[in-house]
C-alpha cells in the first residue's frame, strides 16, 4: 500500500461519503421535524436515478404515472378531510392538474434530444412532488402517533415503494451518463470530473440548506417545529405544512443524490435501501440531531467503506455497520437520556 493507493481510496471514500452525507442530512431533517425515521429516503434516490436513466434512453418515464396515481390518492385524502373550497381548489391544482400537465408536456417532448440540465429538472419535477404527497397520505393523519408507530408506517411505505419500483423499472439496473467526463491530473493522482461534480453539488446543497434554515421564514419555522412542536404550533406554524415542506426537502435531496450516484454505479429498483442505510449510520453518529456531526459521520462511513473494501472486501459491510455499536455506546454514555414528551 503506497501513497497513491491511499489517495485513490480516499478520493473514492470521500465521493461516496458526500452522497451518504446528503442522505444523512435528509434523515436528520425529517426526524427532527416529524419524528419519522424515514426509511424510504433511499427509494427517492433510486427513483430519481432510474427516472433519469429512462429519460436518457428516450423512454417515457413510468414514474409519471406513479405521480398521477399519488396525486389522485392525495386528492382523495384531501377531499375526505376538506375544510374549505379554497383548500380543495389548491389540492386539485397540485395533485391533479400538475401531474397531468407534466405528463402531457413529456408526451409532447422528444426526450432523447434534451440537454442534461433539462433532464435533471424533469427528473426532479417528476419524483420530488411525491415526497409531500407521501407525507399527506401516509404520515399526516397519524402525525401525533408515537415514534414506534411512525417507524412501522415508514417500513411499510418503504416496502410498498420497493415493490412499485420493481413494477415500473423492472429487475434490471441502469447507469447514467456522468455530468462531466473530464479527468484532472494532480501529481500522480487522476481525479474524475464527476467526482468534483459530486463534491461541489454536496457542498452547495449543504450551504443552501444552511442558508434556508438560517435566513428564511420557512426555514426558521421548520427549526422551531423541530425544537418544540407544541410551542411552534402556538406561534401559528402549521405542523402539516412543516411536515410537507420537510418531505419536499427530503425528496429533493434524495433525487439529487440519486442523480449524482447513478453515473458511478449501477442503480437497481432496490439499491436505495442499502445506500440509505449507510446514510442512516452517519445520521446515528450525529445522534439524529446534529447536522455537522452527521455530515462528518458520512465522510467517515465513506472512508471506512473504501479502506475496508481494500483490506477485507468480504467483511466490508460488516465493518461499516458494526461502526454503529461503539457509536451508540459512546452516545449513551456521554449524553443524558431525555424522555420524549408524548
Amino acid at each position, binding site marked *: 500500500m503506497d501513497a497513491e*493507493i491511499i489517495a*485513490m*481510496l480516499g478520493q*473514492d471514500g470521500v*465521493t*461516496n461519503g458526500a*452522497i451518504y452525507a446528503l442522505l444523512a442530512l435528509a434523515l436528520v431533517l425529517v426526524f427532527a421535524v416529524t419524528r419519522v425515521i424515514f426509511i424510504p429516503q433511499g427509494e427517492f434516490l433510486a427513483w430519481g436515478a432510474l427516472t433519469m436513466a429512462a429519460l436518457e434512453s428516450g423512454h417515457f418515464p413510468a414514474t409519471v404515472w406513479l405521480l398521477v396515481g399519488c396525486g389522485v390518492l392525495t386528492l382523495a385524502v384531501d377531499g375526505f378531510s376538506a375544510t374549505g373550497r379554497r383548500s380543495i381548489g389548491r389540492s386539485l391544482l397540485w395533485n391533479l392538474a400538475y401531474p397531468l400537465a407534466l405528463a402531457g408536456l413529456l408526451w409532447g417532448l422528444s426526450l432523447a434530444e434534451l440537454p442534461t440540465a433539462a433532464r435533471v429538472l424533469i427528473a426532479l419535477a417528476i419524483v420530488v412532488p411525491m415526497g409531500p404527497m407521501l407525507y399527506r397520505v401516509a404520515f399526516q393523519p397519524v402525525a401525533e402517533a408515537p415514534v414506534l408507530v411512525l417507524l412501522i408506517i415508514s417500513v411499510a411505505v418503504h416496502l410498498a415503494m420497493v415493490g412499485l419500483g*420493481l413494477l415500473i423499472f*423492472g*429487475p*434490471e*439496473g*441502469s*447507469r447514467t451518463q456522468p455530468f462531466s467526463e473530464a479527468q484532472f491530473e494532480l501529481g500522480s493522482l487522476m481525479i474524475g470530473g464527476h467526482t468534483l461534480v459530486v463534491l461541489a453539488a454536496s457542498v452547495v446543497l449543504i450551504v443552501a440548506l444552511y442558508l434556508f434554515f438560517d435566513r428564511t421564514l420557512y426555514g426558521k419555522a421548520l427549526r422551531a417545529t423541530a425544537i418544540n412542536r407544541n410551542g411552534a404550533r402556538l406561534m401559528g406554524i402549521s405542523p402539516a405544512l412543516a411536515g410537507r415542506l420537510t418531505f419536499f426537502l427530503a425528496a429533493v435531496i434524495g433525487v439529487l443524490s440519486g442523480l449524482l*450516484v447513478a453515473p*458511478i*454505479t*449501477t442503480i*437497481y429498483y*432496490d*439499491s436505495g*435501501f*442499502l*445506500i440509505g442505510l449507510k446514510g442512516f449510520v452517519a445520521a446515528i453518529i450525529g445522534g439524529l440531531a446534529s447536522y455537522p456531526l452527521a455530515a462528518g459521520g458520512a465522510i467517515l462511513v465513506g472512508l471506512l467503506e*473504501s*479502506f475496508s*473494501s*481494500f483490506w477485507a*472486501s*468480504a467483511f*466490508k*459491510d460488516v465493518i461499516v455497520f458494526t461502526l454503529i455499536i461503539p457509536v451508540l455506546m459512546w452516545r449513551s454514555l456521554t449524553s443524558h437520556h431525555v424522555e420524549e414528551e408524548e
Partner: protein
Amino acid sequence: MKLKNLFVITAAALAAAPAVADINVGVVASLTGPAAALGAETRKAVSLFPTTVGGEKVNFILLDDTTDPTAAVKNARKLISEDKVDAILGPNLISTAVAMADVANGEKVPMISVAPLDVSGDKRGFVFRSEPSADLMVQRVVADMLANGVKTVGFIGFSDSWGEVLHKALTKAAEGKITIVASERYGRADPSVQAQALKVISAKPDAVFVGASGTPAAMPQITLRERGFKGRIYQSHGVTSKEFLRVGGKNVEGALIPVGPVLVAEQLPDSHPTKKNAVAFVQTLEAKYGPDSRSTFAGATWDAWLLLQNAIAGAQKAKVKAGTPEYRAALRDGIEKTSKLVGTNGVYSMAAGDHAGYDASAIVMIKVENNHWKLVK
C-alpha cells in the same frame, strides 16, 4: 395463476379419448421477484413445448415461485397433490430447487431442475438437472487461461453464495496450474468497487475472473478498465443477458465468457454436436419473441423438456398408464437411462450415479465484440 387456469380450461375442453389419461407436467419458475429475468426465459421456452407426445396429450401447469423457496415448496406440493402431475420441470435458482427437490423426492415424482443444484446421493433419486454445474464452466475458463499463457489470476466476486461457488470452483480448477494472487468480494448493491479493483491491479495478475452474475457483474470490469487494467477479463456464465451488454457498454468489450452453445448457435462450427438443434430452437424462439431474444436459460429449460419427452416416449412403449405411481417411476428410470441425448444447450448422458450428465465438451467460450456475443474459435 391465470395461465394455470387457462391450461386447465383448455385441458378440459380438448380432453382426448377418455381411455387414455393425459400426461400432466408441472413447471415452476420465478416469474416475479429478484430472479424474474430468469423466469421470463423459462416461460418463453414453455410456450414452445408441444401439446402431444406420441398421440398422448400433455398438459403443462406453470406456477410462479416468486423467487421464494417457501412458495416453491408450496407449488411443488400443490402440483403433486392437486394436479397429480407426472413430472416437474424447473425451478430457476439453486435455493428454490433445493427446497423443491426434497418434496419431489419424498413424493417420488421425477423433477428436472434448470438450476445447477447438487443432484448426487440417495436423497436426489428422483431429481435430475439440465444445467451444467459451475465447476464445468469454470474448468472451461481455466482451460482457456492456460491456452493463452495466463499464470496468475485475480478474483473479484459477489460476497454471497454465488460468489463463493465460483471462487471454490476457480480454486479447485486452478490448483497447481494458475496462482490466484488476489480474491476480492463486493455486494450487488455496492456504490463502488474501486478499492477491490485497486487491490487486484496492485497484485498484477495476467487475467481477472469476475465471479458475479447479471448486470452487477459489469461494475468490476468497468472499474478495472477505467483504472487501466489491460489483461484478459473473464466473466462467469451468469452474465449472458442483453442487459449486461446494455449496462456495461463499451467497457465490457472483450469480456470472455463460458456458455452453453445455444447463445451463439449460428456461429458454431458444423462439427459441434448441438449445432442443428440449437439453430432450430433459436429460430423458433426468435420467430415468436423477436430477434436477440435467445438465452441459455431458455435453452436449458427446453433441454429439460427434451429429457422428459424422451422418457415419456419410453414409458409409452412400455404401455404404462399416465397418472400412476408406476408411470412416475418409469419416467424416472427413463430419464436415468438417457444416453447421448443431443439437446440445444448440450449433450446429456445420465446414469444411476450421475443425474447431471452434462458433457463438458459442449461448452464454448464467447467474447463480447461490438456489443454482441462472438464465438471464440
